[in-house]
């Protein structure tokens, strides 16, 4: 039974991947990509990696899908002809690349089957060290305690990615502001339910991250969803200038992480040795806010946000 489910998911992934790239239209490809992401999340869950499943569903399918759709919407406005085209042009390189990739999968499969698997040194060390730390989730342990330079630099990468995207936002004033649909009574009621609920889920994911699957990246993506809703509903309007609030949100995670990591050196501890669980929670909260702010700004395609309405 289990094998059948796994094979179904595996075959589904292949078909979805093929459909995504060979799709008859760009829009169809985007939708199929989101479905692919959700199926991939299922696959991760089946492989016993719930953290990855959560991240894939929230970031891989959710946020990425939203970003692609918003890019598509702008493309429709700029180049309607391209979106209406029945088929995407296939590159001449497609077939050689596919053959190479297939060969690569084969070689890796062969190599992996051939290798005798010793228990991973680093993995053993993590499970050993984790008992002293007070954390229950080894992934949070690796991300925040043992290999936290990776995480810190990832947050810097996210900032760099946003800043790189910001260079092409341009001073595009021609964009019409999203209409505030305050006249529709249901939107307000819907937002009043969904936004607090999303914040609650994000907080839960963040706090649960110390013992169970979850953490700053998943929580940030979920929190970003509420921001995306507010942008879509016109409650938050894109602004061209980088104002203080969003700038603070963008840099909070990186600043706090760096400052705490440096401050411990004054007490004779090694660089980035976090002084306790409180520091882990503090930094994760800051990272969650920064990640959410980055994603919302990317979705809005703007350097800043301002409130509209009452």
């Amino acid at each position, binding site marked *: 039974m289990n094998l059948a489910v796994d094979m179904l998911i595996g075959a589904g992934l292949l078909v979805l991947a093929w459909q995504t790239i060979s799709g008859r239209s760009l829009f169809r490809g985007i939708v199929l990509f989101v479905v692919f992401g959700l199926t991939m999340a299922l696959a991760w869950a089946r492989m016993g990696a719930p953290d990855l499943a959560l991240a894939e569903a929230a970031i891989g399918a959710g946020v990425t899908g939203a970003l692609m759709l918003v890019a598509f919407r702008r493309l429709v406005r700029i180049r309607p002809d391209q979106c209406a085209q029945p088929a995407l042009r296939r590159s001449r390189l497609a077939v050689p690349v596919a053959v190479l990739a297939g060969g690569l999968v084969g070689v890796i499969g062969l*190599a992996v089957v051939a290798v005798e698997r010793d228990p991973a040194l680093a993995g053993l060390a993590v499970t050993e060290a984790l008992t002293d730390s007070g954390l229950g989730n080894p992934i949070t342990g690796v991300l925040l305690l043992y290999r936290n330079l990776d995480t810190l630099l990832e947050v810097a990468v996210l900032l760099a990615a946003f800043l790189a995207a910001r260079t092409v936002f341009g001073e595009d004033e021609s964009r019409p502001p999203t209409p505030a649909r305050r006249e529709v009574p249901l939107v307000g009621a819907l937002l009043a339910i969904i936004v607090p609920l999303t914040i609650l889920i994000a907080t839960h994911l963040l706090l649960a991250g110390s013992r169970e699957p979850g953490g700053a990246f998943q929580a940030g993506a979920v929190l970003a969803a509420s921001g995306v809703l507010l942008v879509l509903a016109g409650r938050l309007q894109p602004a061209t200038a980088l104002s203080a609030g969003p700038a603070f949100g963008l840099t909070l995670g990186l600043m706090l992480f760096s400052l705490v990591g440096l401050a411990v050196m004054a007490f004779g501890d090694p660089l980035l040795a976090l002084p306790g669980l409180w520091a882990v929670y503090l930094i994760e909260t800051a990272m969650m806010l920064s990640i959410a702010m980055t994603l919302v700004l990317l979705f809005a395609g703007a350097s800043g946000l301002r409130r509209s309405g009452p």
Partner: protein
Amino acid sequence: MTEALLAALVFLPVLGACLLLLAPASWRAAILLVVTVPLPFCLLPLTVLIADAGLFEMALAGHPAPLGIRWRLDALSLLILWLNVSLMILVGLAASARFAPASVEGLRFWPLWLLLAAGIHALLLSADLFNLYVTLELVTLAGIGLIATGGSGAALRAAMRYLLLALMASLLYLLGVGLVYAEAGTLDLYQLGEALEPGLLSATALVLMLAGLLVKSAVFPLHAWLPAAHGNAPGPVSALLSAIVVKVSIYIIWRLWFWTAGDWQLPAPGLLLGLLGGGAILYGSALALVQKRLKMVVAYSTVAQLGYLMLIFPLSNLLAWQAAGYHLVAHGLAKAALFVAAGNILVSLGSDRLRRLAGLDQRLPMDVFTLALASVSLMGLPPSGGFVGKWLFLQAAYEQGAWGWMALIALGGLLAAAYLFRVLALTCFHPRSHGHSTRLREPPTLASLAGLLLALAAIGLGFASAPILGLLEAAWPGAMAP
């Protein structure tokens, strides 16, 4: 204390980037000064330390490998750190003339610039394969953002192409890292040497990582993205991209090859990498000869000059090692000078078409002088830094009786002279009718001066060879036979 100095190299730029986004516009220039000026003073005591002890290691967060990440500073990383810090300061001076820190463009430009510096410093210190991946991402994305600050359609297209290829390269590298971890159970660059056995899995992993890194460092024939990206970015950005960004991934290849896989006997793959380098020298030089725009000549020259850095794999002895390290630094300074000067010329003429450069030696004497000085080093004429690098390469090839490589190195120098003299000849050619002599904006003196300083440094490097060669000798992994 040493830990704090290393931390400052990475975290000063990181915090600076954050502060630039938060602080009022009028403070930005001061913030930039505060986070850049201390960098060379951090390197000075580190240089003394490395000259004495040869090596410094620290476990981040107090967790030793394989659990945690190590930082490891040796003579090679120190040398490239010096190169990067010098470039950050001198090219930064040129950039400050174009992207005023207090302006809107400045706010787009400088945070990415600082993040790029932080990424390069973290990359040079890291001794962990996955951490190297993250730093490479930081370097790549910051670099792409900086290309896009050029704003023109060509710059945006080049940035996009670079982004797609660099992401594919990252995935290849990451796949290799995953396979390495599956076999060895550790990610530490230096522990891997013992844990990794030559075999199908580790060979696949190494090939994947190499392929990704070769794309990122634009080694022929994977260089397709480089000329457009480096030719269309703003001048100071091109300078940094060509002088250091493409080389840090070659640095990782060196680390993997000579440290991680140092005990493996790999003459055939080494020869292949060397042939790629040879191809790069010939192909890049040939295309540099036929370009119509100054910056494209310089960009194709980067493709060619990167080829020399691959010659270390087949030659593979101490002399070749010193030659490659020396060439890396000398080319970095000379190429940065060339791009800064080319950027100044582009800004003042409004075009960098070679046909329009005629008579420029009288109108922009300082920039043309910079162009000439940097060319002297790139061609490898004595007494420049470029000469020392190429001379050592020739010696290394001669010692091994590798006549083919000797011919290639000599030919590469001749070709470099050909494409650079072509530019200089056009610049100093005085037509009778001064058709284009209208419309000329003086480039900012600061930018011209920065270019000149870089070119002088590239020449001066030829006189300071002893300490640098000493550092490189100390960094030589030595264990492997040619």
